[in-house]
C-alpha cells in the first residue's frame, strides 16, 4: 500500500481534531497508528476509510485520491474493509447473514453464493458451527472474528482496524491478534490503531505516533519502537510498556 496524507485538518464544530497531519509511505504492508487518547487516531482512520470528509488537505491511497462525492465515496468504501473496536455486527442477524448480506446487497453476489462464501469464511475462522447464532449468543472474541470475516468477504485491497481488541480480555485479544497477523502474512494490506505495543512492533512494518492532531513521529516500526526520537513518544512508550 502506498499512502499519502498531506496537511490533513478535521474540525468538529469549533473543535480541531486534526491540525495539519502529514504522513507519507512509499510501500507498507501494515501500518500501525499509536498515540495518546484523543490524539486523532480514530479520526485519521475514518478519513482513510472514506467515512468522513477531511476539512482540508489531501489523502491518496495507492496514488488515487480519496473521492469527494458521496456516490464515489460509496464505491471507494466497497473496496476496503473496516473493523471497529466493538458493536460491528448487526444484532438482529445471525453470524452467517451478517457476512452474507453485504455481499448480496452491496456487491451483487447471488444469494446462494454469498451464503456459501460466508460459510467457508466462518469455517476458516473456526466458527463453522456458529453461523446460525446471533451476536448476543456469541462471545466477544467470536463476534470480533465474525466481524473480521465480514470485512474480508469481498476480498478488499485494504483492511482498517480501530482498536480491534480493546474490548476483549487478554486471552481473546491474543486470538484476534493471531488472526490479524495471519492476514498480514497472507498478503493483505492493513492499517491498525492499537494499544498493543508488542503486537505493533512485531506485526507491522511502519508505525506513526499521532498526538494532538499531528503525526509527531513516524518510521519503520522496529526503529520507532526501539529508538524513539521525540521525547513525547519515548515517554508514551515507557508508560504503555509499564502496564
Amino acid at each position, binding site marked *: 500500500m502506498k499512502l499519502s496524507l498531506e496537511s490533513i485538518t478535521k474540525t468538529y464544530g469549533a473543535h480541531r481534531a486534526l491540525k495539519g497531519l502529514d504522513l507519507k509511505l512509499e510501500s507498507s504492508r501494515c501500518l500501525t497508528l499509536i498515540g495518546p487518547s484523543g490524539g486523532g487516531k480514530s479520526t485519521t482512520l475514518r478519513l482513510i476509510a472514506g*467515512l468522513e470528509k477531511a476539512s482540508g488537505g489531501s489523502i491518496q491511497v495507492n496514488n488515487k485520491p480519496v473521492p469527494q462525492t458521496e456516490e464515489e465515496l460509496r464505491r471507494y468504501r466497497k473496496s476496503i474493509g473496516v473493523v471497529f473496536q466493538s458493536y*460491528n455486527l448487526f*444484532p*438482529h442477524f445471525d453470524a452467517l447473514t451478517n457476512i452474507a448480506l*453485504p455481499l448480496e*446487497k*452491496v456487491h451483487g453476489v447471488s444469494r446462494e453464493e454469498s451464503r456459501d462464501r460466508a460459510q467457508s469464511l466462518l469455517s476458516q475462522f473456526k466458527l463453522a458451527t456458529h453461523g446460525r447464532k446471533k451476536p*448476543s449468543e456469541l462471545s466477544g472474541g467470536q463476534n470480533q472474528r465474525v466481524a473480521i470475516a465480514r470485512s474480508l468477504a469481498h476480498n478488499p485491497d485494504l483492511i482498517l482496524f480501530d482498536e480491534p481488541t480493546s474490548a476483549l480480555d487478554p486471552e481473546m485479544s491474543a486470538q484476534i491478534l493471531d488472526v490479524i497477523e495471519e492476514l498480514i502474512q497472507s498478503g493483505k494490506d492493513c492499517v491498525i490503531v492499537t494499544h498493543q505495543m508488542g503486537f505493533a512492533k512485531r506485526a507491522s512494518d511502519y508505525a506513526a505516533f499521532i498526538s494532538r492532531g499531528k503525526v509527531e513521529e513516524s518510521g519503520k516500526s522496529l526503529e520507532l519502537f526501539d529508538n524513539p526520537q521525540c521525547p513525547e513518544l519515548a515517554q508514551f512508550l515507557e508508560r504503555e510498556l509499564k502496564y
Partner: protein
Amino acid sequence: MRALLFLDTENESTGISSLAKAVSFALAFSFLCLLAMAAFASLEYDWNWSAVYRYKTKFIDGWLVTIQVSSVSLVVACLIGGLSALAARSPFLPLRYLSKIYIEGTRGTPLLVQILLIFYVFADAAHLDNRYVVGVLVLSLFSGAYVSEIFRAGIESVGSSQLLSAKAIGFTPYQTFRYIVFPQALRRSLPALAGQFANLIKDSSLLSIIAIGEFTLNAQEVNTSTLSTFESFFPLAVGYLILTLPIFYLSRHLEKRLAFDL
C-alpha cells in the same frame, strides 16, 4: 401462612410462588368485591339483570363495532405514524415541521376536542357524512401522533455505531434503513404498539359522542331503555377489560422477550 402472603425480602431472587400469587390475588379481589357489595347493600339497589339481558345482542354488536373501529384505526394510525416519523427525519425541513406541528398539536389537545372539531367543522366542510369514516379518521390521527413517537424512539434506539458499520460496508442510506434500522426499530416498537392498541380501544368509547354505535353508546342506550344503570355499565367495563387485559399482557410479554433477544 407467612410465605403465602409476604415477599421473602431476604432472598428476593427466589421469586414469588404461584400458590402465593393465587392466594394473594384472591384476597385482594374478594376485598374489593366485599366493598362493592357493602356499597350496594347500603343503596338498597334493585337488581334487574333480566331487563338488561334482553339487550345482549346490542352489547355484542357494540363490542364488535368497537373492535372493528379500533383495529382499522390502528392500521391507519401505523401508516400515519410511520409517515410522520419519516417526515420528522426528512432532509426537506418544512416536512419536519409539518410532522412536529401535527404531533405536538395532537398530543396537546384532548381527544374529545378533536372529535368535536373534526366532526362538526372539517368533516362538514369536506362533505364527509359517513360518521364511521370520520370516527376512524379522528382516532387514527389521534393515535398516529403517539405511534409516530413510538417509531421515532425505535429508530433512535439503533445506535450510531451500527450506522457507521453500515456505512463502512457500503450500504446506501436506503439500504441502511431497509435492512438495519427498520427491522430493529419495528421489533423494539412492538410492545409499545400493543399498549397503544389497548389505549385506542379505550379511547374509541369517546366516539359515542358523535353517535357512533360502538360499545359505550350501545350500553348508554340500554341504560336509557331499562333504567338499570349498574347492570348496563358493569358489562361495559368487563367488555373493555376482556380486550385490554390480554393486550397489556401481550405487550409485557413482548417486552420481556425482546429484552433477552437482541
